[in-house]
Structures are given as structure tokens and as C-alpha cells.
């Protein structure tokens, strides 16, 4: 796996003070050939960072700073899983940009070394809930080498109220245990019936739900039956057992207009609060999103298809926004990612942002109520 190595010490020394040797090294690097350059690569990176040559968005500063604060943190990783989420596939063949992006994520996940223990699909496999969209998604997801855990999103559900999804992928809510952690997968995109009274057809209902800003739909909720199921599921579990919840909606209340929202969030959180270590990994928001409420960490997943802008209000203060995306680049602001589950059950959330440097939001920084240093976008809101 990973090992503590001498290079980190050298970097820390570079951060501390620019010694004469460092100066000479920098000088020699200017005139070196490629071989020499590579040989001293890490030293150069550290020194360059100290000299502010690498722009502050360079992820190394964040990682190295974390490393300096948390010696031996790498050794704390118990296991990891990866995710692919919010692919929003149309049934327009493998050359459609959404299909290509989903395939790109699958390739990323398959190339991980070492392989993750499993891969979570975070919901919204299809765009309009059609059977052929789901079939295309299944075809692409099938190529993932590691075992896959599926979670449903609203775009998968509201054409036929989940019939096809359940037929293809099984129950929309379930739980499982893995290496001492209790995982719960919820259907948190339940909506109170808004369609019967108006006489909407299935296609109309799906189209309304598919509109993020279409307020004819209801707010997401987990709902009483599922909360009852959750209560029973958690009943026999020791409070020290780490809990990780997979949910499509965020399980807290960020922005109602875009359903960045779970109506019964407080009640769901109340069921989770008694446990010492709880993390929620959610989809739907298509952006880098971080929150902590009480003892629960909340992490959003990236979409492969497109990024959402940040909501005009309600942004959790833990979130360091990603910068606005470039519409010329269909991958910008999108991606996939990984979760490192630490011993003790807390998680580090790794965002594999395409066309950008990756970002990791760690359990430690959430617990310390601090936001990582210069790596964040502090620009104007969307």
C-alpha cells in the first residue's frame, strides 16, 4: 500500500527554511536535463511550493500540510471504496457525451491500484427513467471490475415509480456490513404525490422531477415507512460501530428550490445521532460539498455528466467551493471519486475532478472545524 518515505521529510525541510543547499539545488534544476530533473523531482516540487512557484491550487500543498499535521495518517486507512454517480444517461448510444463520461469514470475506477473493495453507484443512472436508458447504464456499469453497490436517484424512479430499477438492480433500500462498518443505502428521493391530482402522465411526471428547478414537484424525503425500516435496521447495532449512509439527497436542508434537501432530515439524523461515528455520502448535488451536523459528516459526490452551480443560499460553511466550470470542456467540474474509510470508521472523501487537480476532504479537518488552506475557491457565489 502506502509507505512513509524520506521524501516527505525533505519537503518539510524545504517548507521550513530555504537553506543554501536548497538554493544551489534550485539553480542546478534550471540547467538540468530530464534525467537530473526527475531525480530531484520531489525536492523541486517542495522547494517550488515554498517559493510559491506552484500556484496555490496545487493540491500538493493541501496534501503535504495534511501530512505534516497527521503523521502516519496513511497507515490509518482501513479500506477504501470508489464511486461513480449521476451519469444521467440518454439512450443515444455509446458516443453520446454522457455515455462517454460514464465510461471514463468506469475506466478510472478500474485503473485504481490497489482496487477498491467495492464501487458505489450514486444514483441517477438514467436521465428520464426509461428502460433503454437504464439498460445502457447497466451495460456500462457492468464493466466495473470490483463489486458494485447500486443506489437509486429521482431520475431513475419517477417514470415507472421504480419498477424497472428494482427489476434490474434490486431493493432501493438495504444495508450491509463490511469490515466492521455498517452501511445503509436509502431511497431518499421519495416525493409526496403531486401528479395524480393534476393527471400527469408518467412521462410528464418524470419530466417535472427531472427539472432541478421545477417546483411543481414535491420535496425529497425518506418518508415514515423507510425511517421505520431504518430504525429497526439500526436497532441491534452497537453505538460504537461506524455507520456510513448512502443517500441520493443530502439528508440535510441546503436549498429547497433545487431539492438540495431532505424534508425529514432532522428525523433521519436523529436516528443516526446516537452512533459515535456516522458519515453520509450523497449524490444529486453534482459538486464538491461538505457539511457536518453534530457528529455526522456529509460528503457530496461528483457527477460524470455535468456540474451544478452552487445554490444562491444555504451553502454549508464547511464547503470550499470548486471554481466555476468551463463550458468548453465537457469534463470540467465533473468526475468520480474514492472514499478512504479510516480505522475508527471516519472517512476521507477524495474528489477525482476531471481536468482539475484532485481534492481530498479529510475527517480530521471536519472534526477540527477548519477549512483547508489556500486550495479553496473563495470567489463570488454563483
Amino acid at each position: 500500500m502506502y509507505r512513509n518515505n524520506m521524501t516527505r521529510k525533505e519537503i518539510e525541510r524545504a517548507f521550513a527554511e530555504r537553506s543554501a543547499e536548497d538554493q544551489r539545488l534550485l539553480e542546478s534544476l534550471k540547467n538540468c536535463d530530464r534525467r537530473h530533473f526527475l531525480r530531484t523531482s520531489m525536492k523541486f516540487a517542495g522547494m517550488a511550493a515554498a517559493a510559491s512557484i506552484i500556484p496555490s491550487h496545487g493540491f500538493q500543498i493541501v496534501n503535504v500540510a495534511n501530512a505534516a499535521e497527521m503523521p502516519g495518517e496513511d497507515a490509518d486507512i482501513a479500506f477504501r471504496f470508489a464511486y461513480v454517480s449521476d451519469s444521467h444517461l440518454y439512450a443515444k448510444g455509446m458516443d453520446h457525451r454522457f455515455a462517454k463520461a460514464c465510461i471514463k469514470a468506469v475506466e478510472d475506477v478500474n485503473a485504481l491500484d490497489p482496487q477498491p473493495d467495492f464501487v458505489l453507484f450514486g444514483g441517477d443512472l438514467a436521465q428520464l427513467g426509461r428502460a433503454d436508458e437504464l439498460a445502457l447504464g447497466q451495460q456500462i456499469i457492468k464493466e466495473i471490475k470490483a463489486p458494485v453497490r447500486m443506489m437509486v436517484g429521482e431520475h431513475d424512479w419517477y417514470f415507472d415509480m421504480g419498477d424497472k430499477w428494482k427489476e434490474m438492480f434490486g431493493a432501493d433500500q438495504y444495508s450491509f456490513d463490511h469490515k466492521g462498518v455498517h452501511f445503509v443505502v436509502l431511497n431518499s428521493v421519495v416525493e409526496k404525490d403531486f401528479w395524480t391530482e393534476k393527471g400527469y402522465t408518467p412521462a410528464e411526471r418524470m419530466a417535472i422531477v427531472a427539472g432541478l428547478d421545477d417546483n411543481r414537484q414535491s420535496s425529497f424525503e425518506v418518508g415514515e415507512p423507510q425511517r421505520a425500516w431504518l430504525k429497526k435496521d439500526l436497532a441491534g447495532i452497537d453505538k460504537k460501530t461506524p455507520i456510513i449512509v448512502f443517500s441520493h439527497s443530502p439528508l440535510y436542508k441546503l436549498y429547497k428550490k433545487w431539492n438540495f434537501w431532505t424534508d425529514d432530515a432532522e428525523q433521519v439524523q436523529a436516528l443516526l445521532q446516537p452512533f459515535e461515528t456516522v458519515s453520509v455520502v450523497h449524490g444529486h448535488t453534482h459538486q464538491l460539498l461538505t457539511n457536518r451536523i453534530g457528529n455526522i459528516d456529509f460528503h457530496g459526490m461528483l457527477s460524470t455528466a455535468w456540474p451544478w452551480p452552487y445554490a444562491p443560499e444555504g451553502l454549508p460553511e464547511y464547503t470550499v467551493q470548486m471554481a466555476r466550470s468551463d463550458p468548453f470542456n465537457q469534463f470540467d467540474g465533473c468526475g468520480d471519486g474514492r472514499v478512504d474509510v479510516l480505522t475508527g470508521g471516519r472517512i476521507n472523501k477524495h474528489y477525482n475532478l476531471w481536468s482539475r487537480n484532485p481534492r481530498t476532504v479529510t475527517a480530521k479537518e471536519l472534526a477540527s472545524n477548519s477549512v483547508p488552506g489556500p486550495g479553496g475557491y473563495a470567489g463570488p457565489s454563483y
Partner: protein
Amino acid sequence: MSIRSIGGTSLFVAVALVVVGAGYPASGDSEQQRRESVGASDGWASRAVWACDRRKMVVVEGVRPDEKIPPARAQLVADVLMDLMRFCNEEITAKIAINQMITVSANGRVYEDYVPGGPLPIVKASFGEPTKREQMIWKAELDKMVAEGDRLFHSDEIGTNGVACAMCHPNASNTHPETYPKFQTQLKKVAVLRDMVNWCIMNPLEGKELPYDDDRMRALEAYILSQRAGKPLDAGRH
């Protein structure tokens, strides 16, 4: 009030009353209609007082046509008529209600509140303040265009790949029309809003650009601007 002003005003009122009493100007049907149109609604009596130019009129409610106007109200009539005489070219009718509230109507427009001595709620421009009814009609027409823009903005018919504008811009967020014109790096030139709309149609949406005066382009612009109403203009901001 001084004797002189009482006298002067009384004289004016007397003249006005004479005009009233001496009969109305050549009574064509339109005159009759106008009299009747401002007159007895709800069974209340009212009498009209003309100014000498035959273009300014004050209608006093609660006074029968053959009744003398009580002095205080008559004074008010005179004050209002004098005030209205500033607008030489307009046809203005003022109404003094039972409770002394005054409204005026200029050139057939809707009656607006008026305070003696204060500014007249009349815009001297050729098209003045819209009536309430006009405002309602105009807004309905705008809402229709905004609704069409809303529909296009959220639909997949503008592009060819199923991507809608609303996917990156729910509620037109992150469109920032108030920051144009500005150098738009994707276009490598200074762009106005329609330039960017067309670029997005051609690139992320893989569609065909719209002519600048196409109804669809205008509708999209209407929707975007309506969603960002109230934001201060900030051309060039990135």
C-alpha cells in the same frame, strides 16, 4: 386669507360659475357623453366646472347640477383649475370626491391621485404613465415571452444532444447577464449576452446557432434577464 385674495378668488369662482351657468359650450354628442361619463355614477350627483379654455374641467361629486357648490369646495375647485391651467395643451379632468379626495385624468387616461399644490401625476411625455389596465396587458405579454423562454431554456429542443440550458443554469443561475459585455474566453473576444447564448447552443448543446433576431433567441434572453432582475449592472466582471 386677505380680503384681496378672497375677492380675487371669489371673482374667479364667479366667472367660473358664470361659465357654468351660462350654459355649456356647443353641445355636440361627445360633450354630452363626456359630461355624463364623469358624472353621476352610483346615483350620486355631480356637477362639472369648466375652465375658460374648454380643456380643463373639474367634476365635483355630491353636488347636483343645479346646486350651488359650497364655498370651501368651490375654493378647492378654483385651486385645482388654476393648477391644471399649467398644462396648456392637455385635456384634463379632475374629480373631487365627497371626501375631498382628488383624482385627475389626463387625455382620457385613468384617474390618478392628486394633492393640491403637489406635482400632478401626469407625465408630459407623449406616452405617459401606463394605466393600470395597460400595465396588466403589457405584463401579460412579457410573461408570455418569458414563459416561452423558460420552456426553451429547460427543453432539449434547442440542442441536439439532450442537454438543456437549465442543466448548468437552474433558474438561470450562473448566467450573469448583468456582467456583459465582457471578454469571454471561450469565444476569445468581447461578447454580449446573445453571443454567449449562441456559443452555448453550438458547443455544450451541439445545436445550431440562432439568428440574433429570432423569436427563440429573444425569448431566451427575456427569461434569463427576468430571472436576474434587480441585479446591478456590472459590465466586464468575471
